[in-house]
């Protein structure tokens, strides 16, 4: 997968975590995966369609997810509470929305579908169709993983329009 597709997600996750967790996050690992996804904590998936198709999974250690939800409520939140899953879905929405906005500015056109809580069935399917890049970020409340699987379907608008007519 090309770095130009991944870089916006790194910057976006960094910015969203800084805003929502009020602390910086640093990348501690980057791996490639081809098998079904194994969830680490509370995870949400966002699918996008357009000139690039794919999906991105945001997976948070229970402590990290509960910390963000707790920041909102001003008190401790148990990681098993439904609001924690909602929190991860909305964080995924923000991270992916901001990243695809940057890609859109570079000429790619996307349609982003609403985030969904990642089920075990989706985990099993997640690695079947394409190779995924997995980024691991570390925060003081636990790790946050971003699993990105995307493929080009069409060239960018500006590249297509640059092709000379025979």
């Amino acid at each position, binding site marked *: 997968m090309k770095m130009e597709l991944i870089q916006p997600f790194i910057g976006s996750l960094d*910015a*969203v975590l800084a*805003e*929502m967790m009020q602390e910086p996050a640093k990348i501690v690992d980057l791996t490639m995966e081809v098998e079904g996804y194994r969830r680490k904590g509370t995870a949400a998936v966002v699918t996008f369609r357009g000139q690039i198709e794919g999906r991105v999974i945001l997976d948070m250690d229970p402590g990290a997810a509960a910390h963000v*939800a707790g920041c*909102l*409520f001003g008190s401790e939140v148990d990681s098993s509470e439904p*609001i924690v899953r*909602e*929190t991860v*879905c*909305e964080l995924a*929405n*923000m*991270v*992916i*929305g*901001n990243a*695809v*906005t940057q890609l*859109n*500015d570079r000429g790619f*056109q*996307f349609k*982003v*579908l*609403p*985030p969904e809580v990642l089920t075990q069935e989706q985990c099993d399917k997640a690695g079947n169709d394409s190779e995924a890049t997995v980024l691991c970020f570390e925060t003081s409340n636990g790790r946050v993983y971003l699993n990105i699987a995307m493929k080009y379907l069409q060239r960018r608008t500006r590249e297509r329009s640059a092709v000379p007519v025979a």
Partner: protein
Amino acid sequence: MKQFEALTRKQGSEPVRYLIVDDSVFARKSLAKMIESFGGQVIGEAGDGCTAITEFSRTKPDIVLMDITMPQMEGIEAVERIVQQHPDARIVMVSSVGYQDNILAALQKGARHFVQKPVKPDALYEIIRYVLNDDGVTATVGAAEEKSR
């Protein structure tokens, strides 16, 4: 959360009334908390565009905060339908997706402003203040400077 100088309606210094439209409970709670810090009152919530139209007619809010990507009916279509029925509706789009095309489409359908998630309270406060004063129907009371408590 920081507290802001209260934004109030022009007549009678009543709190500004808001309708929040977002399919995410987290986003609705987060926006409601910001509105509280602006001295506002949340008079309705909706999780999709269809419900937003009904809730708007029922509650007649001063400001609508509207997400774009939602199930059933997306925010831009909901804006179009609300503005057709209520041309004075003041709708601020709040979305993580900030495509130029999306922003333009929302503004063309009648939205007044756009703010990208994650929402910074200071930015949303200024945008709401601007939208409220834009048509002179409502106005702020007191200085706009933020005060920390």
